């Protein structure tokens, strides 16, 4: 039989849609350029200013530190939740119940105002003399309060993500590792977690990007991160929109970088999953 060429089907709908989208995008760009109230010169003036840079740095620090706390504690909570030890399971369940069940804003304020609740920090165990006695405000600084609020809350969410990842790995993998006589820690580190990563990374990437912007909540503690730094500026200059655009540009830039990082992490942990 004679070989027939394959002719691509025309898709007129797609052409019409492309035209409409370009039209709308054009209108948007035009208004961005022609509307003077966007204040692009103001945006340019503040984009790399010292105030904004230091706010951005604080936001990055908070995001990294809170996610680090969340991940370490989250892995621990996930393992406790999956353990056959009843006490560990219950403690983990209660932690997640408490920290997922109350608003983050409340938790942040709670840590910020901890000195109202416990003016001094010391540990009183039954039958033992109290251990330590320090003013709460010297230990729980604003930075510490922000970090505790964000990190401890995040841990509760990450614990569930990590648990789901571990549970998603076929039980045969654990059995094969056990049959080889691998220790529990090694089984987890070398066999289970690397496979769980494929399920864990996308939602953790999501959480990281979310955390980047959630850090703006710590402005309630008067802690100067990116958003609060531009708020301070526009409360004096009244250039609200241009300065919000400054903050947004930086949030978008960092999110883009995080997306790229996530792409490479996913590729790394997809090893062996393709033919």
């Amino acid at each position, binding site marked *: 039989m004679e070989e027939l060429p394959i002719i691509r089907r025309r898709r007129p709908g797609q052409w019409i849609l492309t035209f409409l989208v370009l039209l709308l995008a054009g209108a948007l760009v035009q208004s961005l350029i022609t509307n003077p109230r966007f204040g692009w010169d103001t945006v340019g003036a503040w984009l790399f200013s010292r105030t904004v840079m230091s706010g951005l740095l604080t936001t990055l620090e908070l995001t990294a530190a809170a996610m680090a706390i969340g991940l370490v504690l989250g892995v621990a909570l996930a393992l406790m939740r999956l353990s056959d030890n009843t006490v560990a399971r219950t403690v983990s369940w209660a932690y997640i119940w408490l920290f997922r069940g109350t608003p983050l804003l409340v938790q942040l304020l709670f840590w910020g105002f901890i000195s109202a609740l416990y003016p001094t920090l010391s540990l009183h165990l039954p039958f033992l003399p109290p251990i330590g006695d320090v003013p709460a405000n010297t230990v729980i600084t604003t930075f510490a309060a922000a970090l505790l609020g964000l990190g401890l809350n995040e841990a509760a969410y990450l614990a569930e993500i990590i648990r789901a990842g571990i549970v998603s790995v076929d039980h045969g993998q654990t059995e094969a590792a056990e*049959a080889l006589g*691998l220790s529990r820690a090694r089984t987890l580190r070398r066999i289970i977690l690397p496979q769980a990563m494929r399920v864990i990374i996308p939602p953790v990437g999501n959480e990281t990007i979310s955390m980047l912007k959630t850090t703006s909540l710590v402005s309630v503690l008067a802690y100067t991160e990116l958003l609060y730094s531009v708020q301070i500026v526009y409360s004096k200059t009244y250039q609200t929109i241009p300065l919000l655009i400054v903050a947004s540009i930086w949030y978008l830039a960092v999110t883009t970088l995080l997306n790229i990082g996530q792409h490479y992490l996913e590729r790394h942990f997809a090893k*062996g999953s393709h033919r």
Partner: protein
Amino acid sequence: MMVQATGVRKAFAGQEVLRGVDLSVPRATVTCVIGPSGSGKSTFLRCVNHLERPDGGRILVDGEPIGYEPYGRGLRELRRRDVARQRRQIGMVFQRFHLFPHLTALGNIVEGPVGAGRPRAEATDEAMALLDRVGLADRRDAYPAQLSGGQQQRVAIARALAMRPKLMLFDEPTSALDPELVGEVLDVMRGLAADGMTMLVVTHELAFAREVADEVVFFDEGRVLESGPPERILTAPDHPRTRDFVKRVL
């Protein structure tokens, strides 16, 4: 005796799966366990390396009670690390291979010995020799998903052998394979048997059992119904249920 099991019992949610299994495997022999599905063959095999906890009875491997130690007037379960130490001497091959998908063929084989504290270089040399033995030396860097079922099962056998076990357990090693791939796995097992490995094999391959086994054990409803040399069990069994089963499978 390499394996000596007496009165092994196991129930799942009230359902009795093993009702007092007595079975011995002499050193350097091959014992094939046959029987209808649901007769408890696999459960018994999994008790031998304590992947399943027996509810009663005793299993000795090379004279050592598996999974339990004498305590007062009874037995108590060993610590995990002691169970792990016992398992290192017992190789296990699963029906569905259970290779580690994120590790290469070589990585799969090296993982056990390195986890047991052997130097990686030494374990790698030995792993290469094992890959050669199962005919896959050229696939050392392939991931499991890049291997056929028969090749995966051969890597799984090499992985178990890397622990230098004194006993090998096979849980229906060819049941998940396409028919044309069964032969290559049975060939490797034949070679092992010829080298004097002690093997306990749950299988439906009666031809293999007839050729390689020193003893064939017929399981039915959680008990050993009869056992003996393959010629007798597979051609002239005493029990009508065995006769029925053999006739249906052959």
